[in-house]
């Protein structure tokens, strides 16, 4: 069932990177550095602007994939992988969408585990790639059985 979702995508959503959200996020990860929210420091930096911490894309709205109905409980976050072409800057619009990149199952000590690979893509307004975020979610056999009901 999950295998059939490979290749399915959400539609693009516009996300504006807000200074206040970046500041709150930086504080919440214990990294309240001025490069993230102080306008003067941003202007004088090599980025000519304030930037967002690398894990900030967790806050983005990436739309939903209608074919993918994941349970809200029992999922295990296995891996998280970011790739950037440059840091994201405060004030810019990032267009995001998500894709089911892969699904496979592996047998191990805890039974037959499912691995779902979800990739977020973030692009600038001209469609140039800014970042990807890949998330590997581990789904146990028990949780998968619950999904069939």
């Amino acid at each position: 069932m999950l295998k059939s979702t490979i290749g399915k995508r959400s539609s693009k959503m516009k996300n504006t990177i807000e200074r206040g959200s970046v500041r709150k996020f930086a504080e919440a990860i214990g990294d309240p550095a001025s490069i993230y929210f102080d306008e003067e420091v941003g202007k004088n930096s090599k980025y000519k602007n304030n930037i967002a911490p690398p894990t900030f894309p967790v806050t983005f709205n990436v739309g939903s994939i209608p074919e993918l109905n994941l349970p809200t409980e029992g999922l295990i976050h296995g891996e998280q992988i970011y790739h950037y072409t440059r840091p994201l800057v405060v004030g810019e619009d990032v267009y995001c969408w998500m894709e089911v990149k892969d699904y496979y199952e592996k047998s191990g000590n805890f039974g037959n585990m499912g691995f779902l690979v979800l990739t977020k893509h973030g692009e600038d307004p001209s469609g140039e790639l800014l970042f990807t975020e890949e998330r590997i979610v581990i789904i146990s056999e028990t949780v998968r059985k619950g999904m069939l009901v």
Partner: protein
Amino acid sequence: MNRIANLQIGDSLTEIPLKPVTRLDLIKYAGASGDFNPIHTIDAEAEKAGLPGIIAHGMWTMGNLSKLFTPYLEEGFIQDYAIRFKGMVFLEDVITLTATVIEKQGGQVKFNVTAVNQHQKNVLQGDILFSI
């Protein structure tokens, strides 16, 4: 402060010990990230999920880890950041963040990064490619 460009294979950035994890840390992260899964904030929900108590968001720890590189943002940025979540982080755990150079090529320096708990267990492990 040493420049990343001057680091050699085997060199490490200054370790960062975090304060013991508090519930308020996780409530703040839930709010800032939008991840309101209650196993990270509400005891009864964590217990219902078979956990001994609430656990930190994996992304809270991963978010913290990147601050090892914040002092170097004038020199370059994190191009690739790959993490495997290997263990749970509970309230009162004391996490230490580390980064060690494992490869150098042109303007790119690859680090092995870890978050280690007070029992010397890696709760998070991966690598960061820093682009100068």
